[in-house]
């Protein structure tokens, strides 16, 4: 598979994951680019068929490194700058629906580990095992964290969110 094919196949997945993890469209774009640049660099050492898992892990490492540098691992403030972007941007597209906007804003207020597991399980649609592989957690931890994350999410959404 050529780089172009791989990029067009997976860039949406990686961008989406980074976007929800970082809450910043520009950063998500930069880190998606960096993830594929690194893939290009380490391409020979990556097994065929394991490309997406490698891309996800690298994207996650980049995001966590970013948070460590910014010392924002537990709390990410609301970024007003998002509201001023071009109407055609993915962010604006996302906020066009009121309920999706409320859900997105609730997710972004979750702590990082809750957000991570919600993105992978509910948005990416990964299985428990796949989530374990990406996060490096065991099955019990994934299930428990997801349960707690959904409970917090429901509380933030006013208690009427039945999922």
């Amino acid at each position, binding site marked *: 598979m050529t780089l172009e094919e791989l990029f067009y196949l997976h860039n949406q997945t990686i961008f*989406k994951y980074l976007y*929800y993890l970082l809450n910043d469209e520009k950063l998500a774009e930069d880190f998606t*680019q960096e993830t594929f640049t690194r893939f290009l660099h380490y391409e020979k050492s990556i097994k065929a068929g394991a490309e997406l898992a490698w891309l996800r892990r*690298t994207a996650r490492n980049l995001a966590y490194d970013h948070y*460590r540098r910014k010392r924002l691992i537990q709390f990410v403030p609301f970024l007003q700058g998002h509201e001023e972007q071009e109407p055609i*941007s*993915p962010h604006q597209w996302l906020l066009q629906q009121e309920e999706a906007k409320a859900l997105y804003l609730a997710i972004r207020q979750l702590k990082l580990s809750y957000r991570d597991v919600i993105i992978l399980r509910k948005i990416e649609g990964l299985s428990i095992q796949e989530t374990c592989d990406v996060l490096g957690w065991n099955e019990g931890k994934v299930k428990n964290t997801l349960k707690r994350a959904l409970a917090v999410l429901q509380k933030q959404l006013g208690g009427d969110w039945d999922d």
Partner: protein
Amino acid sequence: MTKEKTWQHLRELAPTKQQQNNMLREIRLSKKATSWKISAVSLLFIAVLTILALSFLQTPLDIATTTDEAKEIAKIYVRDNDKQDRFLAKASCLYVVAQKCYKNQDVLLQFQQAMATAKSPPPMSLVLKQDVLIVYTDGTQEQWKVAGRYMTNIHTQQVIQLEQPVSSLLFVFRDQMQLLLGYGFLFLSHFILWITKHKVPHIKRRAFAANVEHMIANGVMLLLFAILLATVYFLTATLHAFWIYGAFIIYSTMQVYYRKKAGEPRIYILACALNQLCIGLAFTILFFVY
């Protein structure tokens, strides 16, 4: 709108076509720019270790060529050797195992005074256990065989009796600053790893190896180096610093290579290189500077 549709809306998020094209263009550019590059960290690491190794392998050029009557001892090389018919000590401080190199001025002065005041003992049979090679400041050398307080010159067969055993005269007392510096580098190597682990907590479990491939490579390398050093020692009855530095440089370079290959954070690769450098410097100061 149902809850599932709301989740679905979040799932459909995607970068615009323009964003995708921009990213792909930058990735292609980075490919062209980096295809020939060697990492600055690796380059610096290799350069520093190479200079370090070469500085020890070069031959000194300032050997005195004129004879000085008031000559002084410049260096003493002592080597354990039970073979009565062979003199094995070599005039080099780079033989690390089985030979010691003394350059400390206090030790040399003390040894010279002891030789000057030595007595001539009555004839006796001695079991000579050590080679002592003395190099004077004018470049001349003397080869002695030693047994406790007795020294026999292997060329003139002259025997002298010192007031104290040679081993006590050559008792190694090192410069406190050098000791501090040596152990300082050892401490620094640990401190670098500690601070890096604190900074990048997720690498805590990868101190020895970044992944299974790296672990196997480390195991194979350590085994090969052990076999290599043992073979050189058994063949030459000594171990030159070249072999130790060579093995250490290869091992250190491989650490950086495998960690880069495994995609370790840049800060940890840098810490790994600095850690190896500190260990190399500590070894140099503690084993080569007497």
